[in-house]
């Protein structure tokens, strides 16, 4: 033992009187190194992401919001597979229906299907009429049977009925012959069919059920549920794409500015300040108007693959992207620059610099990974704000245009007839609010989970 020993008094505290004999001599022998090491139980180390995930999970509001948002994603991306209507098709005779309402024609078709028919084709539900060019140029498939036929005269406002029990199996009845009381046609016209369709014959898609218009239809006879699904999809895609644009430009600009420092940083940040002080919405409105014509001209020319790809998106959406790329990245750039400035001072970054890593490598390997939490939070919060802006523009009639639909344009379409058909505004509006709300809540949850400064 080292040190001077000068203890004369040895006694333990009164309440801890020890029986010295209970300790054997070997108790006081030197412990081995591995025994010492085994005293320290290394408890499972928790990685940053595991810890973040635990914190996110412990926030019921954010988890609930995430679940609702996933449900909305399923609704808008997978939902269309389960309904019989498309967002752009105008179903004749089905205009201005309320939620879960059926038009008289649809009622008639339902009755037919309930009574004897196996399948029907109602011309007044679908677009156009049936007309014949050659013998056998229409065919229908019913079970294992194929019926090919042609009609001499145009069948308009009539319903083609397939009923394998009757003879002939295929006939049609005119809408005007329908008797509401007997629930049957006063008169039907049989159609002669063959089993082999002629070459180039068109198939008629028969309906075996009438899908309800869950949200009703608009004044053009388009199904609102289908349009809401489509609109939500467009809105979400716009939001995500715009957020990604902001992320890429903002993160690059911010990290370069923060990393370069000095004069470069000063000039770059003055540019940001200037863009920041420009009243964005006013400029966005102008840009929307200004960009429309040249973009349209470019798309119409359709010379290069880029313009052809973009033209499927439409002028409105592309100009929204352009405005985001021009104006909205500044907030992200500022935040990332701040982060980089903070990180740059830290030892591991300096060490990398001393070891001769190139600036590009330092940004890529050290700065961006450490900013990743902030990047995720900001991007997640950027999505709802992009959706918000898009809906605002579309509501004013400047964004997405028909037949394409976004939630904003759906609301805009509904505003004129709002007092008569409030549900047409209500459904897209609720959906829009839900998307923005859930994304905001998820973003807040992510911020609490990922921002170590707020660690509790």
């Amino acid at each position, binding site marked *: 033992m080292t040190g001077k020993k000068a203890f004369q008094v040895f006694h333990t505290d009164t309440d801890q009187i020890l029986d010295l004999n209970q300790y054997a001599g070997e108790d006081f022998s030197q412990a081995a190194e591995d025994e010492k090491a085994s005293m320290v139980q290394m408890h499972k180390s928790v990685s940053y992401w595991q810890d973040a995930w635990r914190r996110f999970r412990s926030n019921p509001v954010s988890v609930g919001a995430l679940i609702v948002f996933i449900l909305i994603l399923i609704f808008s991306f997978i939902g269309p597979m389960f309904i019989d209507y498309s967002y752009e098709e105008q179903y004749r005779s089905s205009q201005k229906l309320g939620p879960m309402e059926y038009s008289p024609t649809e009622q008639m078709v339902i009755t037919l299907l309930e009574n004897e028919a196996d399948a029907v084709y109602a011309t007044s539900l679908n677009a156009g009429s049936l007309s014949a060019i050659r013998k056998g140029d229409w065919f229908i498939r019913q079970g294992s049977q194929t019926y090919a036929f042609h009609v001499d005269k145009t069948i308009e406002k009539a319903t083609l009925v397939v009923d394998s029990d009757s003879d002939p199996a295929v006939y049609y009845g005119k809408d005007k012959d329908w008797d509401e009381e007997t629930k049957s046609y006063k008169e039907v016209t049989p159609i002669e069919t063959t089993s082999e369709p002629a070459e180039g014959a068109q198939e008629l898609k028969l309906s075996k059920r009438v899908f309800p218009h869950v949200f009703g239809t608009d004044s053009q006879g388009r199904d609102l549920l289908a349009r809401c699904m489509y609109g939500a999809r467009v809105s979400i895609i716009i939001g995500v794409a715009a957020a990604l644009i902001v992320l890429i430009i903002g993160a690059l600009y911010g990290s370069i500015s923060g990393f370069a420092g000095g004069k470069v940083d*000063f000039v770059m940040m003055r540019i940001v300040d200037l863009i920041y002080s*420009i009243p964005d919405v*006013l400029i966005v409105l102008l840009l929307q108007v200004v960009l429309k*014509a040249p973009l349209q001209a470019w798309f119409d020319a359709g010379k290069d693959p880029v313009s052809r790809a973009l033209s499927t998106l439409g002028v409105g959406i592309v100009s929204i992207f352009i405005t985001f790329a021009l104006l909205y990245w500044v907030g992200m750039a500022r935040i990332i620059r701040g982060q980089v400035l903070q990180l740059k001072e830290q030892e591991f970054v300096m060490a990398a610099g001393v070891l001769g890593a190139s600036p590009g490598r330092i940004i890529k390997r050290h700065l961006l990974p450490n900013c990743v939490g902030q990047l995720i939070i900001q991007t997640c919060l950027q999505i709802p704000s992009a959706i918000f802006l898009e809906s605002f523009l579309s509501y004013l009639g400047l964004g997405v245009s028909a037949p394409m639909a976004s939630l904003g344009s759906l609301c805009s379409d509904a505003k004129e007839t709002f*007092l008569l058909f409030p549900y047409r505004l209500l459904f897209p509006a609720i959906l829009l609010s839900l998307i923005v709300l859930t994304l905001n809540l998820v973003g807040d949850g992510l911020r609490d989970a990922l921002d170590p400064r707020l660690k509790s």
Partner: protein
Amino acid sequence: MDMLGYTLKRMAISVLTLLLVAAITFFLMNAIPGSPFMTEKSTPQQIALANAKYGLDKPLIVQFGNYLKNLAKGDMGVSLKMQEGTSVSKILFGQGKFVLSMKIGLLALLVAVIIGIPVGVLQAYYRGRWIDNILRVITTMGIAMPGFVVATLCLFEFGVTLGWLPVQSNSLETFGAYVMPVLTLALNPMCRIAKLTRTSMLDSISQDYIRTANAKGLKTRVVLFKHALRNSLIPVITYLGPLTAGIITGALVVEQIYHIPGLGNYFVSSILNRDYPVIMGTTLLLAALIVIMNLVVDIAYKIVDPRINITKKGD
């Protein structure tokens, strides 16, 4: 720290920003192909004549120079389409549009601040308890609901179904006519202020000086309202700039829905009609409002927070 010098410098920057906005607006508008006088019936001669009459045949840069020269004299040109021949300044200021929009905007701003801040403080005080949770859901919803949704819903519920408030607010003669436009306009910024106040209150509460205040034996109320709130107000004040911009944006929609003949409503129409001088004038006016607000905020910032060495700000 030279307050006067700082103010002057800030004002110079503000003027520069406005010039930039003017330039962007001007060149953007003129980037729209075709003349505003082009209609289906007009002949090329007529268009050329009209262009010459309003000086639209000169090079862009000359046109812009002329515009700025006239602007300095208070002349913002005349409307080309919506009210052909009427001077823009008369449209903006002489027809009550500006006053009307200002009234609603200022009221909304007041409502947002007066309700938003106490709600945020309340939430921070009761953080984690039911009152905080309820208010948090409400404020987040207020942020998530687009203005046009709120406006139409209010219109339907209170105007049509319940019939409490007038549906059309044309002239805003009665008190009731103000209620819906002002509240719908104020809702979003109000919720944002509440949220911001809550966050920054919670941030302040975790600061060392709050521990000091507690160690002094101060009452919780004093600690919260004297020590935490004043520090928390700093980020709220900086938000007043974007808030003004937000209210102006909101006004574009709200005025349309309630049929208020204000500046916002007119601005949207002028854009859709490509009435250049009106767009120019309105953009500049609204931009000036936002820029002035930012200026005021920066100076108020300095007053609330004695630490800020303003000359070094932004680095």
